[in-house]
């Protein structure tokens, strides 16, 4: 890459003596795929975007949405017209003042060029018109009521129009590296090394809400968690965005290091083949899984607490619903759900009653049905293998047999989504901050039309509720619909949600203070604005 020119290196040399006084070095396992918001997929990119760009709204650390560029906003009674009043004082980091026109240009660009703005255009779906009424007011008119508007506007970045005006085709736009982005955020990108993944950010001294208290941020990529933890221990880095559960206890014991464990909405689930037997092509899973009794028995045969204790070393919570209590500050999780307890005796009773007879080989059968399942899991994470092994043991106690088998994610996607060639699959989801996405995963269309549905769950009532909640601008009404949907999933068990994994983070408490702990992570923009070095 041409991003290491010799000339700056030479001029850097004298400047090296006047290094920024406080550098926060952050270690993480990923790295941004690109800094071009039109075409970035990985969440690391979005972490950086949030630091260098501003949006109308933003999710606060308690899960609610607050204004960022917007001072305040309102929606018309029919839910179709949104009016935003902007704050004063934002300036681009090249010194020019920020104007409402520029933001409108940006949102329009995204809205109109859905091909070019591949990743952001879904946030403008249903937008009809975006205009300014005066220098500080923006009006968004939509085609239908949009329930999660705040969430959507929190991803509509105010990027500097001259940077993006010059592209005529989608491909040109997407190939743009955006290596020197101009933004209005609290930090300014200095350098992004595509090969090593190192991101250098300097504090924006002119930031509207006051300059960050640290002078520079460095994000460094580690492929190996041991190495990452070692680096923290010896002080080569100051903070980790994610500590593996297996190392958390040890890191806790380090000197001058503080750890944080926050409940999160990331969950692990057991997918039970729920594809309609009449589907074309016909699913090739074990037909016994269609029996609600078998599903219930399976749910009773999972010791979630054991998974939490052993696989996650206690750093997770047993799961029940696909919407975790941590999502949106707890607003969306259905508190009425009471989890199915681990009880193999109960599982045995259910299966006995349903007519599955224990065979001499320890596996129950009923007619042609035999309770022996493939238990597949992706090869990407070692926790799956651990869970699978334990699960196989529990199933045995209930007269069921699970044969753990590792698969490449690709093959697993191929066999779960289109054809339903599987029995049981272990996997995990990292849901969006808004419940919409994870709810959509279980809709029938998502399976039939080649979407995200890996369980093959099909329930017209659920599908209808899903469509409804999208347009319920009233938050409590939407909450009720979503609760209902959670219950359906919980009772039909296409997924048995196993655990919610905690967000485990850590930092050098001898160097920095002021981190805000939240499900957004201590690397959230709010948190990093609050961090200050210890003198």
């Amino acid at each position, binding site marked *: 890459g041409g991003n290491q020119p010799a000339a700056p290196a030479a001029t850097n040399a004298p400047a090296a003596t006047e290094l920024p006084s406080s550098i926060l070095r952050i270690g993480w396992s990923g790295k941004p795929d690109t800094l071009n918001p039109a075409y970035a997929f990985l969440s690391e990119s979005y972490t950086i975007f949030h630091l260098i760009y501003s949006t109308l709204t933003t999710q606060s650390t308690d899960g609610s949405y607050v204004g960022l560029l917007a001072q305040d906003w309102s929606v018309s009674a029919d839910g179709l017209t949104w009016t935003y009043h902007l704050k004063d004082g934002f300036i681009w980091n090249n010194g020019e003042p920020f104007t409402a026109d520029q933001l409108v240009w940006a949102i329009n660009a995204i809205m109109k060029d859905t091909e070019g703005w591949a990743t952001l255009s879904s946030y403008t779906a249903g937008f009809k018109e975006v205009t300014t009424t005066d220098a500080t007011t923006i009006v968004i008119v939509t085609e239908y009521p949009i329930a999660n508007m705040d969430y959507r506007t929190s991803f509509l970045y105010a990027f500097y129009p001259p940077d993006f005006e010059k592209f005529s085709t989608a491909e040109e736009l997407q190939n743009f590296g955006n290596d020197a982005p101009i933004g209005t955020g609290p930090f300014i990108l200095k350098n992004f090394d595509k090969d090593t993944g190192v991101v250098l950010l300097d504090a924006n001294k002119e930031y509207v809400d006051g300059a960050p208290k640290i002078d520079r941020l460095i994000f460094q990529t580690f492929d190996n968690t041991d190495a990452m933890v070692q680096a923290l221990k010896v002080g080569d880095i100051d903070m980790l965005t994610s500590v*593996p559960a*297996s190392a958390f206890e*040890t890191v806790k014991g380090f000197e001058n290091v503080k750890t944080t464990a926050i409940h999160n909405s990331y969950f692990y689930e057991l997918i039970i083949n729920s594809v309609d037997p009449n589907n074309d092509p016909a699913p090739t899973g074990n037909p016994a899984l269609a029996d609600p009794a078998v599903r219930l028995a399976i749910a009773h045969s999972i010791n979630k607490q054991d998974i939490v204790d*052993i696989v996650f*070393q206690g750093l997770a919570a047993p799961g029940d619903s696909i919407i975790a209590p941590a999502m949106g500050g707890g607003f969306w999780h259905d508190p009425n759900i009471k989890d199915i307890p681990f009880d193999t005796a109960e599982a045995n009773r259910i299966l006995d009653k349903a007519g599955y007879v224990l065979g001499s080989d320890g596996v129950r059968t009923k007619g042609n049905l035999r309770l022996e399942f493939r238990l597949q899991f992706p090869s990407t994470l070692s926790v799956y*293998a651990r869970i699978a*092994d334990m699960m196989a043991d529990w199933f045995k106690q209930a007269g069921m047999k699970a044969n753990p*088998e*590792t*698969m490449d994610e690709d093959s697993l996607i191929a066999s779960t989504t289109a054809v339903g060639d599987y029995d049981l699959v272990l996997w995990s989801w990292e849901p969006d901050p808004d419940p919409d996405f994870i709810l959509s995963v279980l809709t029938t269309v998502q399976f039939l039309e080649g979407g995200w549905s890996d369980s093959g769950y099909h329930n017209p009532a659920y599908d209808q509720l899903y469509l409804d909640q999208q347009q319920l601008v009233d938050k409590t009404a939407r909450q009720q619909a979503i609760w209902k949907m959670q219950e359906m999933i919980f009772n039909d068990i296409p997924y048995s949600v196993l655990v919610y994994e905690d967000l485990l983070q850590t930092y050098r408490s001898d160097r920095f203070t002021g981190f805000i702990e939240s499900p957004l992570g201590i690397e959230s923009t709010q948190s990093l604005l609050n961090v200050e070095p210890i003198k």
Partner: protein
Amino acid sequence: MNENWALFKRNLFEFWKAFRRNKLGLLGGFLVLTAILAATFAPLLTPYAPTEVIRDVNGRGLTFAPPSVHAPLGTDDAGRDIWSQLIYGARVSLAVGFLAGFIAMFIGSLFGILAGYFGGRIDNLLMRVTDVLLVIPDLPLMLVLVATLRQMDLHVSPLVVLVFVIGLLYWTSTARLIRSQVLTIKERQYVARSRAIGAGHVHIIRKHILPQIMPLIVANTVLIISTAILIESGLAFLGLGDPTQPSWGAMLNFAFDRSAVTNGAWWFYLPPGFAIVWVTLGCVLLGNVLEDMLNPRLTAHHLESNQNMIAIQKREGE
């Protein structure tokens, strides 16, 4: 066939007599044998099943527990006994090693003999194939192969894929070795004599070629087994093994993945490595010694220091 039996016993005895003198060979034999015994009698040697979770009084899994009376080598990240996994792991490692070794040996010997004995086009083909395979870096090729084969819906255990890939890639060195040996044997006068007597190809290969190269094949197989075990552990370490089988490579994969180093859980990452070294070293020692016994060619050594070449002087000096 009384005399044949007597002959066999005599040959065996003589082999043992020569072998016994070789300390390294004995050590190698001991290492391999213990591993085989451990694998065979794994259930008798282990206090736990390899997947069993060891729990404290509250029923909580004991993860990363250092060695204690409960778990002689401590527990891993999932609270399972390292010792038990180690012993059961011998099964996977040895099975993969032996099977892959045998496949490689079989193919290699077959091609080596055919190419060496008949020469001509088949020989040319073999040499070109091995020439090509020899310079393609083996691990990347193997990784690519294993990864792609696993992608295809073969419905076999990843270990089977491993066995075949290793076996099908590692026969070339054997084939070349056997071929060159067969080439020299073929030129020996006793083969020409046998032909002149009127013996056919099958007779010559069975009676004159095979017995000559058999020890070489054995020695080579032992070496390939060690290679196969190393490769299996390597691929498992890179995550291409079967994580549900407690193989040594898989244990190291978990150890590395699950922060054993950070946790200071040396009992987790040291033993599997030692086990691999144990077996491969055993095989290497055994193989080298067998090879040496077969062709003890280096007798002369013209620079070996010979301080007391002249004993007279010394005696006078005393």
